[in-house]
């Protein structure tokens, strides 16, 4: 009997395998393919205060064992998410974490306030690392320690549910970055978001995605994600949801050994809709094979 259950920042999950934001919509479409209840949690699509049309297509391009995307946070806005999307998910038996995006700390706080008081929302993932929307200042919020602190503090002040801060590895001082989020009160971290990348069609000489620059995801970035989780695990005490290129159970185990308490499956769902389900059952088999009683015994257990 192996135990796959985890309790991550107060959120109880039946196993550590979750669906990554932006790669599972609001659950409905995948529920048509497999039973969502098999998974540990779902992190739904990036939600903003107002509806967003998203960026002009083409929005994706394939790269070497990865892909670029620039969806631009297309979503129906928080009111519709609360009215239409969350109630649907309540019929399942798995925690729902809502991924939130804003243009200012006040927007983040407003989203956190209403969503954390919505029945069926178990946690928030604060996306301050989205490469596909433009803010007043040039970079990503998470590229400024001050913005990280301010937004995290603002969200934590109003949130009734655990808050995961989602960061990028595209920063000059990654350890300070994660420590800043922890100090500002984050209950957990989500690592990593996509990395800013670009591809050009050499025939048309145009960028392959309309928005020019997009976010790189998929197996190509896995070594960067593993490194980020490893460094974060050794810098902070709060738990980590690891992601970036997870395709199979081996990748999930690698992330957990590096320091992740849970793992999120993103791009892999696109090429194998069952990837997350296979990882959940694969983890069980892995624990049995390796005579480990509980999945939490993997976290951070890389041997130096």
């Amino acid at each position, binding site marked *: 009997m192996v135990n796959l259950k985890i309790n991550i920042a107060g959120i109880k999950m039946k196993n550590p395998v979750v669906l990554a934001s932006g790669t599972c919509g609001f659950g409905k479409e995948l529920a048509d393919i497999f039973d969502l209840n098999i998974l540990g949690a779902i992190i739904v699509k990036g939600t903003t205060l107002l509806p967003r049309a998203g960026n002009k*297509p083409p929005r*994706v*391009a*394939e790269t070497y*064992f990865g892909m670029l995307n620039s969806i631009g946070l297309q979503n129906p806005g928080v009111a519709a998410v609360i009215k239409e999307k969350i109630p649907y998910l309540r019929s399942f038996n798995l925690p729902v974490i809502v991924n939130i995006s804003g243009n200012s700390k006040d927007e983040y706080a407003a989203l956190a306030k209403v969503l954390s008081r919505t029945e069926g929302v178990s946690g928030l993932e604060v996306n301050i690392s989205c490469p596909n929307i433009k803010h007043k200042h040039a970079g990503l919020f998470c590229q400024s320690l001050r913005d990280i602190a301010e937004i995290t503090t603002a969200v934590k002040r109003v949130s009734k549910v655990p808050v995961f801060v989602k960061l990028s590895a595209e920063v000059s001082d990654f350890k300070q970055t994660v420590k800043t989020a922890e100090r500002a009160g984050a209950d957990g971290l989500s690592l990593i978001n996509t990395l800013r990348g670009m591809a050009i069609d050499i025939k048309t000489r145009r960028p392959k995605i309309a928005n020019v620059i997009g976010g790189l995801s998929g197996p190509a970035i896995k070594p960067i994600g593993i490194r980020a989780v490893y460094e974060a695990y050794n810098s902070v005490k709060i738990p980590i949801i690891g992601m970036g290129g997870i395709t199979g159970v081996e990748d999930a185990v690698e992330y957990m050994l590096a320091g992740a308490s849970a793992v999120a499956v993103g791009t892999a769902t696109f*090429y*194998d809709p069952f990837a997350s389900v296979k990882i959940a059952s694969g983890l069980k088999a892995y624990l049995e094979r390796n005579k480990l009683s509980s999945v939490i015994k993997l976290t951070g257990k890389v041997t130096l």
Partner: protein
Amino acid sequence: MKKIIEGRIIFNEKTSGGYYNMRIKAAWNAENVVPGQFVTLKTNENGMPLIRRPMGIFKIAPPHIEILYKKIGSGTGLLSKMKPGETISVLGPLGNGFTLPEGRKSAILVGGGYGISPIACLYEELKRKKVKILIVIGAKNKSLVFKKGLPGAKIATEDGSDGMKGLVTDLLEKLCQKVSCSTNVIYACGPEQMLKAVAKVAKKHNISCSVSMEALMACGVGVCLSCVCALKVKSGFEYKRVCTDGPVFDAGELDW
């Protein structure tokens, strides 16, 4: 319900127009498949391309389906090398197919490029439903025309090497002048520019028109929002998913 299955390849052979025709034994109930729907194929089990390739359904012959495809790049390149007996991961059926609006007795089918695949599928269905059918096919030149199993199809080629010299919409324009707008319906599938031109002709003649769109797709099942096209709404436009809200749209609703 969408399903993912390991389909067994029955045949995979070159056919006319430079296309390949593959028959796959698909364990999901091919009886529920509607013309205009598509599948996505994992052309390389573990390697590149990572992303599945969408393919329109060309023939519905439970428990088999067939696809008609052109060898373009990495994915279709691998596809063309697959042999009978091998298996391939098939996800489907995906998307909304063509529907026959109430009271329409005759249909004009317009196909360009690999758009001929779902059009040929629809032809079989309409024939069974005893709908009167006119077919027009457009291509650059004769060598690219696929008209097998489409008797009476009228052809337009850009260089005049087969049928009329000109665009498929020139042919369509002529046809529309002769038919009744209230009992007819146009179904089109092909490159976006062609669909746009077809929609214009349809509008001019006030004939109901459904087009099947294409778009770059990462997931094919509605979760990634990569495949959008713009639909008109009161406030301007709204992006809808080709894979799930389409691929078949009412031409009048599209914000070209």
